[in-house]
């Protein structure tokens, strides 16, 4: 017993020690310890964020150096306050107040004493800074916007938050990252990679040399310069036209899918979200929940597309062979659904495909829609075919562009109606409104523009995208360079395109012809409703217009959606016409038309639902 006792104690001690050591060194050990190790300091070198240019090489976003005067309160030594304040351009009270605040925050850590000095002040201070112990100047880089427009596309950068830090190990507290738009989507291209130097420290926090002979250190990697597909002139022009109006404009280059402009009204100057006033401005924009300037309507606003949708129904009917160009349908200043009459503005009479499109005859397209459904034995089958065709135009689902997702829009399916009415409890007459772009279909402006581009291309489209070049080299991403085919054969497009051209020649947009340019377009006037105190109330129709030009060699496809702008040929038609002329000719010949559009606003319409009074809709104002 006595002999074994000591051996036993030795073994127990050994096991206890090994247990404790394996707890420390195996279970508690985490490989991230280099990051937490207090004996290794990391010093970062930040590369300059990449510049953003438009499609023609005009600068949109660059960087501006900013100089912050920093203070480490503990290291401050008695100084000539008067002279120092003079150079900083602040008075003594303010200086003392700031210094006290910094000391309260932390005596050891640097605080900003005066943010964003002007370049002149910086030049003056720089020489003398040495004299003032405990103060130094920290150079920062701020985003600089060489345009007052495109805030919704460019996005902005802001400090990383807790969520970013948890998700992405790259970032550390206080760094900036792209928050929306291009800045966010192409964050990694624009940002580059910060360089890091590891420095060994002792317990007094003094540097005692490089860690592992600098073998782990990295050099910063420059941010990439990128060109985006926007046309700066067109974008700025469109935003001027949108002043006082709500809605979205999207213009694409049909041959590539490049987004020429993407406008949301109302919008804001991107420079508002940079610099000293940033947070104040941001709060103001964010709190405007009625006009909602931070909400990008061009990709988020899903609305009934209205009459432009008729062109697709025509294409489907041709593809399915349920009618041809000569097929006629009579319009009784409307059409009947059962015993109920639905109106039409076209003037009545016998309509064929061509006049049905350029006069935007509701009766003709209701008939067309019926013919599509009559071809099939069951409504379900017809619905599937119709849905498949529609979706091939990029409707009813995310388009997959390199911007925030936006909204899907909606192309209703048979399941959608089964849920609504019950299985086999509905027929084409229940859903006839879809024939004229009302009813259940919804689309965003970018989807409308894309659909227009597909028509302009006679049967295919490229996914709309915003990135054009990286460091001067055109992108090769197959997502954007390979065409997506629609389910409609090429030959069926010509009659529809001719109908759309006639919209300008003799139809609903004949007042909007552009001298010397053949345009194909389609007006739309979309009924819409809101709830006022729980009562469903109709508002003035949305004004919708899609167009592409020139007809035979399309360079631009555009969709304009103006909320409560009434007839499609009014606000939307005017704006589309001006945008096309601006893009193709570079200048506007119809100055009075332009003047009218720049001056007119719809604020009075937008005020109506909030006025608390009875109001009229669809007033003839001009």
């Amino acid at each position: 017993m006595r002999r074994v006792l000591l051996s036993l104690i030795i073994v127990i001690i050994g096991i206890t020690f090994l247990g404790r050591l394996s707890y420390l060194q195996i279970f508690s050990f985490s490989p991230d310890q280099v990051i937490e190790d207090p004996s290794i300091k990391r010093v970062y070198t930040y590369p300059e964020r990449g510049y953003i240019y438009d499609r023609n090489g005009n600068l949109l976003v660059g960087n501006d150096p900013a100089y912050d005067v920093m203070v480490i309160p503990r290291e401050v030594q008695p100084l000539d306050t008067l002279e120092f304040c003079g150079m900083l351009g602040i008075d003594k009270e303010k200086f003392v107040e700031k210094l006290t605040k910094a000391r309260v925050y932390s005596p050891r850590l640097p605080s900003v004493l005066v943010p964003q000095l002007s370049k002149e002040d910086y030049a003056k201070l720089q020489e003398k800074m040495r004299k003032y112990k405990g103060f130094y100047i920290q150079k920062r880089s701020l985003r600089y916007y060489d345009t007052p427009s495109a805030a919704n596309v460019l996005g902005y950068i802001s400090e990383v938050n807790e969520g970013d830090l948890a998700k992405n190990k790259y970032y550390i507290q206080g760094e900036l990252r792209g928050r929306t738009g291009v800045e966010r989507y192409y964050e990694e291209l624009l940002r580059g990679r910060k360089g890091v130097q590891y420095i060994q420290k002792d317990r007094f926090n003094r540097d005692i040399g490089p860690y592992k002979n600098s073998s782990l250190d990295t050099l910063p990697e420059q941010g990439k310069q990128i060109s985006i597909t926007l046309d700066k002139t067109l974008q700025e022009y469109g935003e001027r036209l949108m002043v006082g109006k709500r809605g979205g404009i999207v213009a694409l280059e049909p041959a590539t899918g490049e987004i020429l402009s993407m406008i949301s009204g109302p919008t804001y100057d991107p420079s508002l979200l940079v610099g000293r006033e940033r947070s104040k401005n941001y709060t103001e924009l964010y709190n405007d929940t009625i006009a909602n300037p931070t909400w990008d309507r061009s990709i988020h606003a899903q609305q009934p597309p209205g009459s432009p949708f008729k062109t697709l129904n025509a294409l489907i009917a041709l593809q399915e062979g349920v009618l041809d160009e000569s097929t006629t349908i009579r319009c009784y200043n409307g059409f009947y659904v059962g015993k109920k009459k639905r109106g039409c503005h076209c003037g009545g009479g016998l309509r064929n495909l061509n006049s049905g499109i350029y006069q935007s005859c509701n009766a003709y397209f209701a008939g067309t829609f019926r013919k599509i459904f009559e071809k099939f034995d069951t409504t379900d089958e017809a619905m599937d075919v119709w849905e498949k065709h529609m979706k091939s135009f990029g409707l009813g689902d995310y388009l997959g562009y390199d911007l925030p997702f936006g909204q899907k829009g909606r192309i209703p399916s048979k399941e959608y109606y089964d849920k609504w009415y019950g299985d086999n409890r509905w027929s084409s007459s229940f859903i006839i409104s879809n024939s004229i772009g009302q009813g259940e279909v919804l689309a965003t402006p970018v989807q409308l523009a894309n659909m227009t581009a597909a028509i302009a291309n006679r049967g295919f489209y490229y996914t709309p995208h915003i990135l054009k070049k990286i460091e001067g080299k055109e992108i090769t991403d197959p997502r954007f360079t390979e065409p997506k085919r629609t389910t409609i054969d090429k030959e069926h497009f010509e009659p529809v395109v001719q109908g759309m051209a006639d919209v300008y020649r003799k139809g609903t947009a004949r007042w909007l012809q552009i001298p010397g340019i053949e345009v194909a377009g389609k007006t739309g006037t979309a009924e819409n409703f809101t709830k006022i105190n729980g009562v469903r109330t109709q508002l003035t129709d949305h004004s919708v217009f899609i167009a592409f030009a020139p007809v035979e060699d399309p360079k631009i496809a555009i969709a304009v959606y103006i909320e409560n702008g009434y007839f499609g040929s009014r606000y939307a038609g005017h704006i589309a016409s001006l945008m096309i002329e601006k893009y193709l000719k570079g200048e506007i010949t119809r100055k009075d038309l332009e003047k009218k559009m720049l001056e007119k606003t719809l604020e009075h319409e937008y005020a109506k639902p909030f006025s608390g009074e009875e109001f009229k809709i669809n007033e003839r104002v001009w």
Partner: protein
Amino acid sequence: MFGKVLRRIDWLTILIYLALVIIGWTNIYSSTFTDEQTSLLDLTTRSGKQLFFIIVSFVTIIVILALEANFYERFASLFYLLTILSLIGLYLFGKTIAGATSWYDLGFFNFQPSELAKVATALALAKYLSDIQTDLRRIKDQLYALLIIFIPALLIIPQPDPGSALVFFSLIFVIFREGLPLYYLGIGFTLILIFITTLMFGTIWLTIGLLLLIALFFLLKRKSLKVPLLPIAIGSIAIILFSLSVNFVFNNLFEQRHRDRFSLWLRLEKDPEKLEQIRKTIGYNTYQSEKAIESGGFFGKGFLEGTRTKGDFVPEQDTDYIFTTIGEEWGFIGTATVIILFSILFLRLIYLAERQKNAFSRMYGYGVISVLLIHYFINIGMVIGILPTIGIPLPFFSYGGSGLLFFTLLLFVFLKLDTNRLKENF
């Protein structure tokens, strides 16, 4: 004659000894490493000095082995007497380093008599216990044996160096081996247990626990068993009284720094803000040493690559906290190797002690084991955070010339005795 010694000496022990000394020196080198190029034997560096003492230790080994084995038994009492005198002399001529008057200044190095006392006391105790006249069943002899241990300890405590003094109590083990009744040990453990329980849970919970235990005993006992009621009652009351006295001693007689050490050790503080405070003050050493060991992981950061070692985050890293360097640079592989080497050494020494025909040799062997074991246990226990902070070195590892020299002396005197194991009398 020397050839015989070499043939009979226990080479396994020597091998482990060499391994420990080499590993120790490597880590001292790493702990004190700077980028300046110096020669290994540069006596201005700590590693150079230590290397010098390693060489001195080797010379000492040769001298020890060359001397007659009976020399140690014969002069044990004289050694002891001289050591006691040198300990007393410290109060007159001692040199004070870091607040403790534990050294004689011998010019080229500082001599610490308490190190020598460990060897001398182990020899003296072995001699007394192996004496034919001594009978451990007699209380008088028990007390006499304990006195041999307590005298040097009591002289060392006021230096102050309670850590070294504690080492002497480990020699009580030798007395147990030779026949001191085991219930002394039982009582000792019970007292420690009550001490810890009282601090962690308080006297009330201790009492409740005790009553529950007694109740459990009554429930589970055989019907026929006669219950010794009186002893149980007296025992319980004694335990409660002791527990109350623990509270009194802890709160009134201990100094705040001692209280802090215990509350740190038993993890009594739960408030995270206060814990943070403790980490920066009294818990700083333990916190840093645990972190340094932890950061080594399984494989370690590599020789001379310990960032916390280089940054001097762990205080006393070449002396009492040398084990952290092994932990950081060599990882679990390194620490486990050291633990296993020590364990093998101890088990081997027990084996060697038990095979002695001569009682003096056996008892001295146990003395060696006790002294080395308590150093190893307290030092590593402290460094890895399972024992309170008590500053004593890790044998063969920690920087310090006299330390290494006397641990070597302690061990090799036994190995010399072992070469004579077959003779009952020298």
